[in-house]
């Protein structure tokens, strides 16, 4: 191959690529430099890929060209077409295929290296088995997370009796099969590991409620990073080890940070079955059997409340995002401000489906940044607020998280909208939120419900405020 360059040159290029990835991640962690950080990381990736193509180890290009071409078509199409609201599940999907790739590399390398017992270096064998195991778990787990967020699967936790015992037994069995695969170098055990790990990934994520999905995706992201790093040990490739380990380590910390922002420990997320049916049942059954009553309000009445208020706080949630109501909300806020109303936005750390998701959506609608308030800054304002306008947000406003130790949400930091003089809740129906838990807020005397699609309701409010 005339194109081939020496392994030393390639390793130098990998070093440069690694530096780009490190600088990229560093810049990604600060708002003003984040976008350039992504570009720097992409450049690092390009360097690693191009120099890998020049490697003397590669003696045939057709498979690579065909695979990359197919991958680019799918990758570009899905990244371009996805709506901003569907970003979280798209991240899950991309994470899953990355994990799948790591598992497939391990499988192919296992097939190539193991003609019979005792031929493979123990470190290579261990790393291959680790990649296969973790990569497969990440693949199937991410697909279940995708299914839940895309609402192909129910967002509620799916649990059955003895689930944790089954999961534990399966994991122990997988380790046992790994030992067998290492000792015999027989392909059949590799297949058993791949399939067993796929099943384990499904069982791991199914019992986790939709509200915890961001934390799970972040964890699986770290898993894929480790699986990638592990393939680096098999292929003795530093680019893979650097890239994979950076993600494995930073992803683990990010998972912990996210959990902390939601006041959920990792163990709680994985084994707590957040909003499990048995835990949620008392809440949905309306407490002690007495039917709870709520108040409905017309758009016209709500508009009058807003138009003659002096302080309004908008609490946007996922429902706003799904209905694409952010532009309408902006228009409503502009109208109110013209009338001298002070309008602020209260952003819960996990508003939308992921930390930072809502900020992105509101920025898309050109909502001025200084009007966005974090939970800590806005909570003291609610007692002085005339109207809290809750648009498609649910679990993050549930006072049970503060007051009811029995509630599965108990301890999660919430927006104290119930402290405002009036609460207007824009919602499609009385159905419970993503966590599958009924919201006490809706039954409070100061709360009123405005039913309908968030976008329609906001448009009706805009028209009514103009007339008021």
């Amino acid at each position: 191959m005339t194109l081939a360059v020496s392994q030393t040159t390639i390793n130098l290029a990998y070093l440069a690529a690694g530096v780009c990835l490190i600088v990229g991640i560093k810049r990604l962690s600060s708002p003003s430099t984040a976008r350039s950080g992504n570009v720097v990381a992409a450049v690092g990736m390009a360097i690693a890929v191009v120099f890998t193509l020049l490697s003397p180890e590669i003696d045939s290009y057709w498979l690579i060209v065909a695979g990359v071409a197919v991958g680019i078509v799918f990758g570009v199409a899905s990244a371009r077409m996805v709506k901003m609201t569907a970003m979280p599940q798209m991240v899950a999907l991309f994470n899953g295929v990355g994990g799948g790739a790591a598992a497939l590399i391990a499988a192919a390398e296992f097939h190539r290296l193991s003609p019979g017992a005792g031929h493979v270096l123990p470190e290579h064998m261990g790393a291959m088995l680790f990649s296969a195991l973790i990569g497969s778990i990440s693949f199937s787990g991410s697909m279940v997370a995708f299914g839940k967020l895309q609402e192909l699967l129910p967002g509620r936790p799916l649990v059955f009796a003895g689930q944790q015992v089954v999961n534990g037994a399966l994991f122990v069995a997988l380790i046992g099969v790994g030992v067998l695969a290492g000792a015999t170098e027989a392909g059949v055990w590799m297949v058993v590991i791949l399939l067993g790990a796929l099943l384990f990934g499904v069982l791991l994520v199914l019992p986790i409620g939709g509200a915890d999905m961001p934390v799970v995706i972040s964890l699986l992201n770290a898993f894929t990073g480790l699986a990638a790093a592990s393939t680096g040990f098999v292929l003795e490739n530093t680019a893979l080890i650097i890239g994979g380990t950076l993600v494995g380590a930073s992803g683990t910390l990010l998972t912990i940070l996210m959990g902390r922002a939601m006041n959920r420990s990792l163990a709680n997320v994985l084994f707590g079955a957040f909003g499990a049916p048995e835990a949620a049942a008392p809440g949905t059954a309306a407490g002690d059997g007495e039917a709870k009553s709520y108040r409905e309000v017309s758009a016209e009445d709500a508009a009058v409340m807003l138009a003659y208020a002096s302080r309004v706080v908008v609490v946007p949630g996922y429902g706003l995002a799904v209905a694409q109501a952010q532009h309408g909300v902006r228009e409503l806020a502009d109208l109110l401000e013209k009338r001298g109303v002070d309008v602020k936005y209260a952003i819960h750390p996990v508003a939308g489906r992921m930390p930072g998701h809502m900020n992105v959506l509101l920025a898309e609608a050109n909502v001025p940044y200084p009007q966005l308030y974090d939970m800590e800054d806005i909570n003291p304002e609610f007692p002085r607020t005339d109207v809290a306008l809750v648009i498609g947000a649910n679990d993050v406003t549930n006072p049970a998280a503060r007051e009811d130790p029995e509630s599965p949400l108990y301890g999660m930091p919430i927006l104290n909208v119930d402290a405002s003089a009036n609460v207007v809740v824009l919602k499609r129906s009385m159905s419970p939120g993503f966590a599958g838990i009924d919201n006490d807020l809706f039954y409070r005397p100061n709360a009123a419900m405005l039913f309908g699609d968030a976008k329609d309701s906001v448009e009706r409010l805009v028209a009514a405020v103009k007339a008021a």
Partner: protein
Amino acid sequence: MSQALLNSITVFVLAAFLGIELISRVPALLHTPLMSGTNAIHGIVLVGAMLIAGSADSTLEQALAFVAVVFATINVVGGFLVTDRMLEMFKRRPDEEEHE
């Protein structure tokens, strides 16, 4: 322990510390874009997939390697593009306040 393994372990341990250090002060606002960005970075498995695809002998290895290359490419390309779309939303903020 072979020299190659020792080198790999050295790189692994240093990268692990670095990964934790790099993002220890990230604001919650950036959690999602950062997750998405690092998600694209583990698409580096593409390097491994290409090396396997370029030297696969049997049909089975070729099939596995082909799917691995497709998957890893989707991870890399989709990951960076989606992250860029998320971060695009942040960029206009400072000057926006003036003429809004």
